[in-house]
């Protein structure tokens, strides 16, 4: 049930993200151009959810925000999956001092208050190391990179624990006795058998990345306007709550549904 509900929620949001250009053509507005004569309008056939503080269509910005927020979530989770699996497998396989070092590093990362560190990291000027700043694609890349720095830890711990138990199995010993190389043992025998915990960890990583991106964008350190993200649509909440309370409700609801979808998916996979 949980698995189905999670997939349905995420599917719906993905459909919205993919359908954003269609909806744009249908309604005939540009969600990035201000229209100062139509600020904070009520919901109408022309603007199904009304307009924001610059007169841009809320529904269209919500759909475009889905593209950015979901892309950041999925990209971060995939990067964390790659990095975390590699580190977890390495720690489980080598054991000893390297294992201890990597796991102490993971413990240290987990002990840190993530958000304050992310805030300081997000303000670092990537322009100085040659990355462009201010364009949406560059913003997304920067946020994904920063979030991956923290995201790998959860995956690595799960991957290591699962890999240690698989490495002790008889079929691994059998494969080694038959002369399989260590790379073959790890890729052919261990990796496929730790897929389930990795799936759970990835779903949770997507949820965490979406929440973190929205928080950073809300604080004005994530995806910069005029590009839309669910978080930056709420960044001038102080004005929204007085002028157009509903405009402050929708983006948060979208974040809630996306994160709940990932959590349900992870819960469902775990059973």
């Amino acid at each position, binding site marked *: 049930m949980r698995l189905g509900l999670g997939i349905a929620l995420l599917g719906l949001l993905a459909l919205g993200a993919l359908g954003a250009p269609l909806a744009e053509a249908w309604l005939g507005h540009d969600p990035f151009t201000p229209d100062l004569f139509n600020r904070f309008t009520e919901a109408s056939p022309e603007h199904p959810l009304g307009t924001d503080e610059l007169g841009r269509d809320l529904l269209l910005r919500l759909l475009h925000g889905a593209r950015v927020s979901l892309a950041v979530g999925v990209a971060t989770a995939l990067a964390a999956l790659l990095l975390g699996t590699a580190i977890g497998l390495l720690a489980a396989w080598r054991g000893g001092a390297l294992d201890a070092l990597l796991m*102490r590093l993971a*413990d*240290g990362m*987990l*002990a*840190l*208050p*993530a*958000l*304050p*560190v992310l*805030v*300081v*990291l997000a*303000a*670092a*000027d*990537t*322009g*100085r*190391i040659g990355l462009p700043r201010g364009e949406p694609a560059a913003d997304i890349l920067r946020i994904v990179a920063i979030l991956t720095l923290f995201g790998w830890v959860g995956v690595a711990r799960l991957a290591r624990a699962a890999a240690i138990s698989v490495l002790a199995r008889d079929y691994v010993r059998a494969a080694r006795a038959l002369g399989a190389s260590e790379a073959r043992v790890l890729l052919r025998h261990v990796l496929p058998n730790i897929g389930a915990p990795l799936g759970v960890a990835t779903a949770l990583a997507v*949820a965490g990345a979406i*929440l973190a991106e*929205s*928080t950073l964008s*809300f*604080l*004005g*350190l994530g995806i910069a306007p005029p590009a839309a993200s669910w*978080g930056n649509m*709420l960044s001038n*909440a*102080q004005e*929204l*709550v*007085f002028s157009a*309370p509903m405009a*402050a*409700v929708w*983006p*948060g609801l979208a*974040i*809630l*549904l996306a*994160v*709940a979808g990932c*959590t*349900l998916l992870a*819960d469902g996979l775990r059973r």
Partner: protein
Amino acid sequence: MIRLVATRLVQIAATLAILSFVMFLLIGLMPGDPIDVAIAGDPRLSAEDAARLRALHGLDQPLLSRYLAWAGALLEGRFGHSRLFAQPVAQVLWPALLSTLVLVGAAILLSGGLGIGLGLLAAARPRLKPLVDAVAILGQSAPSFWMGILLIILFAVTLGWLPAGGTPEGGPVEALRFLVLPVTTLALANIAAYARHSAAATALALGEPWVTAARARGNGEARLLLHHAFPNAAVPVLQIAAMDAGTLVGGALVTETLFARPGMGKLIYDAVMGNDTNLALVALLLVALMTMLATLGADLAQRALDPRLRDG
């Protein structure tokens, strides 16, 4: 026990050393150094003046020696100066720390009390469990800044009962009024986690043979729940508290910024936004230290409660 504390303290010191070094290097990537700001403020400064000022402040030194000088001063208790507030960092830091401790402490009490209460309810009445689960998933999925915005819309804008943010002026009652919404916002996210875990742990304990034995001796259900099952469920709940210390501090940053409430979180945010790198770094390290000490404290409390953990 002493061995454990010693190991953990070494670990904390190592984490802080690495964090401060990495952050110091990265801050070098932040836009503009203080001299750039001075040049922007006074166009008469020539390139030679800028170079002389950089040399005067040691900004022409290599990063590593600058880090060592800075970290050494920090260890001696010299926290330096805040550019943003034009005050010594120490003077800015302590009031903010106090304010955050009040906020976080109140939020822990509220979320712990409500969450554990809900969890016990779910354990005692299994029919309510799906409801508690659903509320828990929603509570954990909602971004806390959005919950805060909703609370502001409801209680400050629509009903007008409470202030939407800012600093209290006046007596303790006024201070409490300013505390209600931020504390609720910060607590909401954790109520869900506490409810979920205390429900699961208490339900598990209720199934143990000693509870059946106590029931056979004629103890009432309320006594079974509070006296026999819950104390055994307290250990996993404390573990959640230990793991959530970092989340709480992060939540405090968002809450303080949203409600324009002075505190460590807002201080870090303002320092980052205002290019006050020294203040941002010192505040970040202090927050990290407090978080790790809180986690250690919760771990020790867990050991004190559960003899099995002490021996292992």
